[in-house]
């Protein structure tokens, strides 16, 4: 057991926890004022819902033993046996701390999806969706990659969750946007962010917390953590720049929202690669992330599906790019295509594709189940009124 590693992982866990409220602010600023609370709530309450699931059966199904490579077992049900000894997943920190760290990843993943159906989802339907999705999508995919499942065994690289978290939530987001349908007034009425300073603040907290996410995924205060930390900073800063560069070229003006979005795109893209690549690769990964994700946003506008807050473009596309880039650029403790190992790239493709297909299909099934039980969407009138009043009997602001 190492007190230094434990110290770092306690902090990293707290940092990842902060990302979920950070996301709440990021998303909250992007919706119209009448939906700010409903939107923030959908992220915030994941901290409750998923924590309970995790204690009861979540951690066990994701990390406790293995059933055919696809899911864990119930051996750590209720966290029985998950104690303070150094765990199976690290020699230098208590097992329970690993469980806490992983819990925070499980919390934020369903929260990410909420951006796709922002401004129109019923709160009851959202709660049911989150419970089902965490159970039937997150836990298995997490197990595949990190819990001893088939993808990890195949050699898929995912330093901090590009596949488990971002591709996964991005695929779910696309499915959800298609099934739930467009917001009333989408493309015919102005729908724009009500509080961009809130969004910038959210991006800042995400960035800050992401150091825990990526560098914490080393599970120790060691060189791997330092590399992950540094590549995270570099890719993120670069992506903020490349996104606004692309905006400047295509639309004539760099925007603040573009810088914030680019930062998140960079964070997403570097996630799977963070501990496996050097600074120069991080520059390239970040640079491409800013451009690709921006183009994906423009493509969405063309295709016309209403992924309200661009989860697909940022997390889906960014995560996919990151997963593949890991297969290209890996050079630290792993070897990518550009360093002579094309097989890694192929494995990354398999990993990404499996996550996309599995997540899309199961998400669709879950959404249909929700539709015919609690219902998915608020009524037209409620949508007009906004989620804050219609779902929560509250309003966000009474500034005067």
């Amino acid at each position, binding site marked *: 057991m190492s007190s230094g590693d434990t110290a770092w992982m306690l902090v990293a866990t707290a940092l990842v926890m902060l990302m979920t409220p950070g996301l709440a602010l990021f998303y909250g600023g992007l919706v119209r004022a009448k939906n700010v609370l409903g939107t923030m709530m959908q992220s915030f309450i994941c901290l409750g819902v998923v924590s309970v699931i995790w204690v009861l059966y979540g951690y066990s199904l994701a990390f406790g033993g293995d059933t055919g490579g696809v899911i864990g077992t119930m051996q750590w049900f209720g966290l029985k046996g998950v104690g303070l000894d150094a765990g199976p997943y690290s020699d230098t920190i208590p097992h329970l701390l690993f469980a806490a760290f992983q819990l925070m990843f499980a919390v934020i993943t369903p929260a990410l999806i909420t951006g796709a159906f922002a401004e129109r989802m019923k709160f009851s339907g959202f709660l049911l969706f989150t419970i089902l999705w965490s159970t039937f999508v997150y836990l298995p995919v997490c197990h595949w990659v990190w819990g001893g499942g088939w993808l990890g065994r195949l050699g898929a690289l995912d330093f901090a969750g590009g596949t488990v978290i971002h591709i996964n939530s991005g695929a779910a987001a696309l499915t959800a946007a298609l099934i739930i349908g467009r917001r009333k*007034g989408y493309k015919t*009425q*102005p729908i724009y962010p009500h509080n961009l300073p809130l969004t910038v603040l959210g991006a800042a907290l995400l960035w800050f917390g992401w150091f825990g996410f990526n560098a914490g995924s080393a599970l120790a205060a060691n060189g791997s953590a330092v590399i992950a930390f540094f590549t995270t900073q570099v890719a993120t800063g670069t992506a903020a720049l490349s996104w606004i560069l692309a905006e400047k070229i295509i639309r004539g003006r760099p925007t603040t929202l573009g810088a914030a979005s680019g930062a998140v795109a960079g964070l997403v893209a570097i996630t799977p690669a963070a501990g496996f690549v050097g600074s120069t690769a991080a520059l390239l990964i970040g640079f491409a992330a800013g451009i690709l994700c921006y183009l994906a946003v423009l493509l969405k506008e063309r295709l016309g599906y209403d992924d309200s807050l661009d989860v697909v473009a940022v997390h889906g596309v960014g995560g996919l790019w990151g997963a593949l880039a890991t297969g290209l650029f890996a050079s630290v403790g792993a070897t990518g295509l550009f360093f002579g190992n094309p097989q890694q790239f192929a494995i990354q493709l398999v990993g990404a594709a499996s996550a996309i297909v599995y997540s899309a299909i199961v998400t669709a099934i879950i959404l249909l189940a929700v539709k015919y039980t609690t219902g998915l969407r608020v009524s037209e009138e409620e949508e*007009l*009124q906004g989620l804050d*009043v219609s779902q929560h*009997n*509250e*309003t966000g602001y009474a500034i005067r």
Partner: protein
Amino acid sequence: MKKIEAIIKPFKLDEVKEELQALGITGMTVTEVRGFGRQKGHKEVYRGAEYQVDFIPKIKIEIVVSSAMVESVVQSIIKSAKTGKIGDGKIFILPLEEVVRIRTGESGDDAV
């Protein structure tokens, strides 16, 4: 010259504006207001406290037009602002004595 004031539902503003533009109206002034009327409000709850909110967000549009235009403006507003549900709002027509354009000092019909 008359001054027309219309209280409408906020999400109808763009439609009304387009309809009026189509009619040749080149200027108007809008204000965010809150209306009390037959349309019922909603409940708000903050911890233990419960409030009935009776004032509902509305948009007030003010348009100054020549007397000849009044009828068509009113019809355009009705057409574009109507949802058929309670709370669609009102149109008020007020007499106006004079209009002046600040930039040029022009007055009367020339000023709008």
